[in-house]
């Protein structure tokens, strides 16, 4: 695909899509906000085939989140997400309760699927909270997820059709795919090649540990923009990212994210596992971090042919940075603060204004 073509296609898709859905939503009693932050900036690289929009209910002004798609893949994703929410409420082997935004409407209209939920207002964003509150909220969320361990035949029957079930074999297979993709996109990068071989060996050698902690409910995109805080409760926003896999997968995504946004919290969580849980659990966290870092590098490597200019340079920098983090994870070390700061400065200088605005809303 020619450079920038992807963005142009997305913009056209967005314009047509919004023109289509505004009258549908209006007939159903909903209006759309003027600015749709989740369709802007770099979103075109990750958005897939559905729109995530914000709006309000016309009769009472209630703020809502609208997920909408007319594409088979997007429709399937939304249907699966709704089913996951329903199953999650019914799971009878969960130790704790999951909070989800209230469902307002789920319907099919003129070839579109629409899923509308309430918008959860939060007094403060997660990253604005004091350190201890962040630490305890994160642990509460992880414990809630870990409290759902599908171990029996009866449990498997409940979750089989709604959630993916991953084990060491699945993780290794995925890891192989990422490695192939990265090798194709970054064929001249010998450093990454060596690192990825090391990562693959690390995962293979410890595949039993991956399996040992599998079968747990995990949110593979567990980062602050996918949950909201109300009072002392965490509301999960994206149920399509839930699967049953290694219990440290959501920890891994979260701690990798915190390398950039709150390294003190990242270190505190890693230390917490090391000092309070079995040795294999610390190893499991490292394994999942390595897996997710490989995936992240693969994601950025795959975007390179679709982008140009500053964004291309930025994604190259991103790959370099996450390489550092991967190397640190493999060596069981933390990333030096100066490397994080240097990367953040460079990233901010290369980000578009539109993307900067989107990031402000997200975090």
């Amino acid at each position: 695909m020619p450079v920038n073509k992807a963005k142009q296609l997305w913009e056209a898709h967005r314009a047509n899509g919004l023109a289509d859905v505004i009258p549908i939503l209006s007939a159903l009693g909903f209006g759309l906000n003027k600015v749709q932050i989740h369709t802007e900036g770099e979103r075109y690289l990750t958005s897939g085939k559905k729109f995530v929009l914000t709006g309000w209910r016309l009769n009472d002004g209630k703020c809502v989140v609208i997920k909408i798609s007319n594409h088979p893949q997007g429709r399937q994703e939304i249907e699966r997400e709704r089913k996951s929410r329903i199953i999650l409420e019914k799971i009878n082997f969960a130790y704790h309760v999951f909070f989800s935004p209230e469902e307002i409407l789920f319907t099919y209209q003129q070839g579109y699927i629409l899923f509308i939920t309430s918008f959860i207002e939060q007094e403060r964003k997660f990253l604005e909270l004091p350190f201890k509150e962040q630490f305890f909220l994160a642990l509460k969320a992880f414990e809630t997820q870990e409290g759902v361990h599908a171990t029996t035949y009866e449990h498997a029957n409940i979750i089989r059709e709604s959630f993916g079930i991953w084990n060491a074999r699945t993780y290794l297979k995925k890891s192989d795919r990422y490695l192939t993709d990265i090798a194709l996109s970054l064929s001249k990068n010998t450093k990454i090649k060596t690192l990825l071989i090391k990562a693959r060996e690390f995962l293979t050698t410890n595949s039993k540990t991956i399996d040992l902690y599998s079968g747990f409910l995990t949110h593979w995109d567990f980062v602050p923009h996918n949950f909201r805080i109300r009072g002392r409760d965490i509301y999960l926003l994206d149920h399509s990212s839930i699967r049953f896999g290694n219990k440290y997968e959501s920890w891994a995504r979260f701690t990798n994210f915190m390398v950039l946004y709150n390294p003190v919290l990242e270190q505190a969580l890693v230390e917490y596992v090391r000092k309070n849980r079995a040795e294999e659990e610390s190893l499991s966290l490292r394994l999942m971090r390595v897996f997710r870092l490989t995936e992240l590098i693969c994601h950025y490597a795959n975007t390179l042919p679709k982008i140009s200019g500053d964004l291309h340079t930025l994604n190259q920098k991103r790959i370099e940075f996450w390489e550092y983090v991967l190397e640190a994870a493999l060596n069981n070390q933390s990333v030096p603060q100066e490397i994080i700061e240097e990367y953040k400065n460079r990233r901010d200088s290369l980000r578009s204004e539109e993307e900067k605005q989107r990031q402000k809303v997200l975090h």
Partner: protein
Amino acid sequence: MKIIVATPLYPPEVDNIAIYVKEVAERLRNKEDIVIAAYASTAEKIPGVTLLTTDKRRPLPVRLFQYTIMLFKASRNADIIYAQNAVAVGLPAIIVHWLLKIPVVLNFTEDESWKRAKNLHLTNQPFKEFLNLPQANLKIRLIMRLQGWILRRASIIITPSRALANLITAAYLIRPARVFINYRPPEKPEILPFNIQPVPHQIIAAGPLVKWTGIAAIIRAAALLKKEFPDVRLLIAGNGPEKTNLKELAQKLGISNYVIFLGYVSRPENWYIRKTSQVYTHNYISQDLSGTILTSFSAQTPVIAAKTPATNEIISHGQTGLLVKPDDEKEIAQEIARIFKDETLRAKIIDGMRKTLDEKLSWNNHIRKLVNLFESIQKNNYASKQS
């Protein structure tokens, strides 16, 4: 001595039974021949301990049958089967006991039927009331019957308190002589990545928010304390159907800003709030069989508890805590104020709690009593076989 530890749960499961089994095996492995027979698809290994598993991913009748066969084979030359609670291992253990004449020691820490009924939101009853008139579906009633049948056939039943022993002997028609009390050590302290500073005049209460946990009286007590201690803060950990009523009560008493409903709290946060609080208030009107008081002992947070058979067992008034008349807000407030003001009393209680932890509630004590019991059963069993 070869001991088969039969368990329905084992790490990576996070349930208390799972954690207990691993701890017991680790502590016994150097002196005894330990075999863990667990229902598990994956399991954490312990060097020097044999781990046998039955895959849980089979339909219930299949896995029950497979587990029984596995337990039978493992028990051929064993001395004791130490079964952890549940029906899922209790039934196979009793079958093997019949076939091989091996004594079964059943560790009864929680009632399977009550636990299930609570998890399915079928009941909010306290345990005693549930045993008398259970709010439960047919399946749970059958489990209850089966559990009673198993309990009556176990060689010895271990319970973590006299209060629990009294309840189950009456409800399940067990001969009291076959029940042995062995106090359970509290959970391990949490290691947190920051310093913990005590908060003056902070009170903690925890438990399900239902009528019988007596939270309303603690809120009323906090309101009484407000006059003398304007900075008093009451933290309430837990969820339940009474939450709205309790919030309204705090509002009505004009202390809603000082009563903080924490909802479910994680294990590390539970530890943190106990350590930072000056007093833990426990006003369970019905008998409490949870380990929540023990967590406060471990955190060395003085406990003020409603006087019931269960609290009487671990709290000696003025020595290891303070006992009050159940649901009496004036007495609760009065005793909290004593802890706030009297540093000597506070220090004395903390010292008493430490001694109780070291003696009565320690792992060493628990294991010593367990081994002594196993040895005496083994001797009796050997003697009866000889005769």
